[in-house]
Each structure stands twice: as C-alpha cells, then as structure tokens.
C-alpha cells in the first residue's frame, strides 16, 4: 500500500476520534433540547465548570477560598488532602446533579411555557453565571487535569502498522488519550441509549419531550424529568470536560468547545442522539481530511472554518439535519 493512502487512513482514524469528542459535547445539547426545547448555550461552560470542580476536589482546594480570605482576612487555600480520581469524579457528579436541580428550581421552573428565545436567553445568562461561579469557587488560573490517563502516541500501534507500507511510512500515529476518550464516549453513548430506551425514566423522558400535557396526564412529573435531563447533561459535560481538559488543560477556552458542537448539531439534527454521533464523526473526519487534501493548496488552517461552512451548506439544503425531525404542519 502506498504511503499516501496509509497516511490518508491515519487522518481518517484521527478524524473519527476527534469526531467522537465533538459528538460528546453535542450530546449534551441534544439531551436538553429534546426533553425541554431549550437550546442550552451553557453546555460548554458546564463542561468547563465540571472540569474545574473535578480538579478542585482532587487537589483538595477549598471552594470560594479567595472570597473567604478577602472577607475574613484569612489565608486558607487548601484542605491539605488529595482526593483519589474516582471519588472526585463521583463527587463532581453530585455537584452537577445539585446544579441541575438548582437550574430547574430557580430558573426554568419559572419560565415554563415561555417562548424558546426567552429560554435561550436564560441559558446565555446561565453560561455567564456559571463561568463566574467557576472562577469564584476554584480560582481563574489555568489548571492541569491529571487523571493518570495515558498520553502521547501509541508505540504499539505505530510499530505494528509500520510494516503495512513501504520505507517512507513509519506507522500510524494514534494518540492514546484520544483512544481512551473514544472508548469512554462510546460507553457513555451506549449507556445513554440503554437508559432512554429501556428504563421507566427513559420512557418518561421521551414522553415529556413529545407532549407535556399528555405526560402529566399519565402521572409524569415534569420537574423531576427536567432535573434528570439536566443531570444527564451535567454527566455528559463532566465526561467532555474531563477528556478535553486532560488534553488541553482546564481553562476558559474549554468552554468554547460548545462552538464546535454547533455545526455537529446542524448536521445531525438537534433532536437525535444518533444524529449527534454521526454528525460529530462526519465533521471530525471531514475537517481532518479536508486539511490533509485541500489544506496545503489554500494555505492550511482549514480546520477553523471547515465545520461551519459544511453546516451552512446543510442549513441551505437540509435544515432539519440528517436525522432531525422534519416538521410538517398539516393545514
């Protein structure tokens, strides 16, 4: 096999793994949008907040320590212990569930029945609030998230695949963290699908997504389902935050991954879990392949805009996305 062809395959593999990461962020959007019609602008910040909280808990930071020091003139920063990663993840998840409850209790409960644009504006407010809250709780410095996940290229794959091509091919370069992230994302997606298809709460979630009145009439508590959905979105945000945070550090720019989810959603449709996954993969592979093939001809850096242009094309020709529900009004 020619080296060019093999490098092409490597690009696709890396694209698929990048796509899984995009899909992970997009999933959070889909969950909330499906169940409540809210486009959650805060999803990216939720990922950032989850990652910040995880690092903070692991390092034994005292939340709001700056604030406390400022008010009481103390000099506390640390509990002086370190929390093992798994326990810290569980605690962070609890924080995200508490956050979900608070969001429903103090915000969206009071906005039931409002126009989608108002709900959307509320999530923008929520995003800024949460961003500030993250800083206030855990400080604004850039943090590293070390969960002990494998980093760097995989030697095994590189050596095994080196024999596939000729002398000018040195084997596939596959990042180990990307592989872990892909596996985790796949497990998460399967779990989410199983949850929504086979459980009582999953069925109730789908019911609420479809018709509020009907859901109430069969005894489903809308409040409970919305807290549940926001908690699931919090879980997805946590996983996305951990994976992206482990890759590129926990800092404000982490919240911008939400922007990468937008084209994914436009491709896959806002209401489809499989859509989010396929959309993510298409964008991941598409932008890597485009950069690899067309990129050199036009001066590179195509990854910054390729996804958005692709999404624009979709908006023109298939606005509901690949898997979204086509809305037909009967007259």
């Amino acid at each position: 096999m020619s080296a060019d062809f093999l490098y092409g395959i490597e690009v696709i593999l890396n694209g698929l793994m990048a796509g899984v990461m995009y899909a992970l962020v997009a999933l959070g959007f889909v969950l909330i949008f499906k169940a409540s019609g809210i486009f959650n602008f805060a999803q990216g910040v939720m990922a950032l907040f989850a990652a910040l909280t995880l690092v903070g808990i692991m390092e034994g930071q005292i939340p709001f320590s700056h604030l406390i020091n400022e008010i009481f003139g103390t000099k506390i920063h640390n509990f002086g212990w370190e929390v093992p990663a798994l326990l810290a993840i569980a605690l962070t998840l609890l924080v995200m569930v508490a956050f979900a409850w608070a969001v429903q209790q103090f915000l969206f409960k009071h906005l039931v029945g409002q126009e989608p644009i108002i709900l959307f504006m509320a999530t923008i407010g929520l995003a800024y609030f949460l961003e500030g809250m993250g800083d206030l709780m855990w400080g604004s410095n850039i943090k590293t998230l070390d969960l002990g996940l494998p980093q760097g290229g995989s030697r095994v794959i590189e050596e095994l695949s080196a024999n596939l091509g000729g002398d000018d091919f040195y084997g596939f370069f596959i990042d180990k963290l990307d592989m872990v992230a892909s596996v985790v994302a796949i497990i998460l997606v399967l779990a989410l699908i199983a949850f929504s298809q086979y459980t009582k709460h999953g069925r109730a979630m789908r019911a609420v997504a479809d018709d509020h009145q009907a859901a109430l009439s069969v005894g489903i508590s809308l409040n409970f389902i919305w807290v549940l959905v926001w908690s699931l979105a919090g879980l997805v945000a946590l996983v996305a935050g951990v994976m992206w945070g482990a890759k590129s550090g926990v800092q404000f720019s982490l919240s911008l991954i939400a922007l990468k989810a937008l084209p994914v959603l436009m491709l896959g449709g806002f209401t489809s879990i499989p859509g989010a996954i396929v959309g993510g993969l298409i964008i991941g592979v598409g932008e890597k392949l485009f950069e690899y093939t067309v990129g050199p001809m036009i001066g590179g850096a195509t990854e910054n805009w390729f996804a958005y242009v692709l999404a624009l094309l979709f908006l023109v020709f298939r606005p509901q996305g690949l898997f979204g529900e086509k809305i037909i009004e009967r007259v």
Partner: protein
Amino acid sequence: MNETATPQMQDQTLEDYTTADGRKIGGVMMDLKSITLRFGGLIAINDISFNIRQGEIRAIIGPNGAGKSSMLNVISGFYQPQEGEVWFMGKKRPTMRPYKVARQGIARTFQNIALFEGMTVLDNIMTGRLNFMKTGWVAQSIWLGSAKKEETINRQKVEEIIDFLEIQTIRKTPVGRLPYGLKKRVELARALAAEPNLLLLDEPMAGMNVEEKEDMSRFILDVNDEFGTTIALIEHDMGVVMDLSDRVVVMDYGKKIGDGTPDEVRNNQEVIEAYLGVSHD
C-alpha cells in the same frame, strides 16, 4: 316538572342500586363542592357542585364556552379552582399537581388529543403503565431478570387493552401517522392502561363520523361494564349522551343549570332554553 333537576334535588338517594342493564352504581366517588374558577376577570366556573358516583357514567354537557373542559381540568388537577373543595374517595383533596392526581387513579383524555406523536402506539400505551414499574433504572437499563419480568407483565396488560379496543394492527405504527379517529382510540387506550378508578373523557367523539361514534360509544360502555371504571365525559352529541350516561350535569356560562337523569335533563326548561335559545318578549 321542569323543577325536577334543581341543584337541591341531585343528591337524592345515595344507596347503591343496579341499573336496568345490570351495572352496579355505588356511593359518591368524586364530590365537587362549590367550585369557582376564574381566569382574571372571567369566571369560567361559577359555584358549581355535583358528584360522580362509583361505577356510573356521568356526562357533562352544555353549549360551547360553558366551562365543561375547565371542569374536567379542575378534576384532573390541570386547573386549581380559587374556591371550593374537591373530595375524592371520601377525602378532601389538597391542591395537587396534575401528575399526582394521575397517580391517584384519575386518567384522562384531551379534547385536542395529547399523544406522544413520535412514539409507536404500543409505546404510547406503555406510558400509561409507568406508575406500575417499580424496579430500579439500573436493572432496567441492563435488562435484568426482575425488570424483564415486570416489563412482560405490563406488556401483557397493554396487549389486553389493545385487543379490547381492537387496535392490534396498528400497534407498531408511530402515532403521528394515524388518522384522527384511531388517535382518539389510542388516547383512550393509554388512559385505560393506567387502570384508573375514574376516567375523564373530554369530547371522546368530537369530529368523528357516525360509524366511529358508534364504535367509541360501544368501547365506553364496555369499559364501564367490564372494568367497572367510573367515567365522566363531555360530549356534544345529545343522542350519544342520552344513550350512554346514567346522570347528566348541564352547564351554561359557567353555571350549573341542570343535573339528573337524561330524561329529567331533557325535560328541564332551563336546559331547553340554553340549547334552543329563548325568545325575549
């Protein structure tokens, strides 16, 4: 003679009795006392009292805008009345959210059909069984034995209802694709799946042709007869109401103008005037 159906007369005897067709009517199941419901300045329901007895088919009739649906919404908890008391099964009901009312065994259908359009008929009806499912979500998502057994039991119940309402052939069809008459039937099926004590039907036959109306009437009678379900329904078709119901409440402009057996109501002067209009001379 037109005084036979005055509000004072309605609570006549509350002894159990058996109807001509052999159905048993028991004591008061749902008692509405002086219900008043306002929307701002508009009085939708004005000091109305009536009751629903165990095992009966109770019709609520009246011209458009009389407050019939509002009444049903009060019973099912979708609206909270400003004044009055709702007594259910001998207990005064506190202010209660609609999902809690549903869990108490009051199922309903809607005037404008509220179904889960994206789900299949089977899934729609299964949502009626949600409150019967008790195994944990972990067990359910990994399809453990106990969860599986529970699903099977509930599925059997749902299949019975599907057979009962004769909708076997559409059980896997997404509801959004069904014609109107069948949607109404699926909605009834979902309500029945909850095995309600009290079933509220908001215009179950609206927009149906004669044949569909006959089918629906038969189903309503069968439900009442076979499951002993107490039914309160709103209907415009007088023929249907007179055939189906044991007792009728008549509303007009938010007030109760008649209450009694179909015959009593039919001969009530106020009711006749509300329906046919009256000449002011």
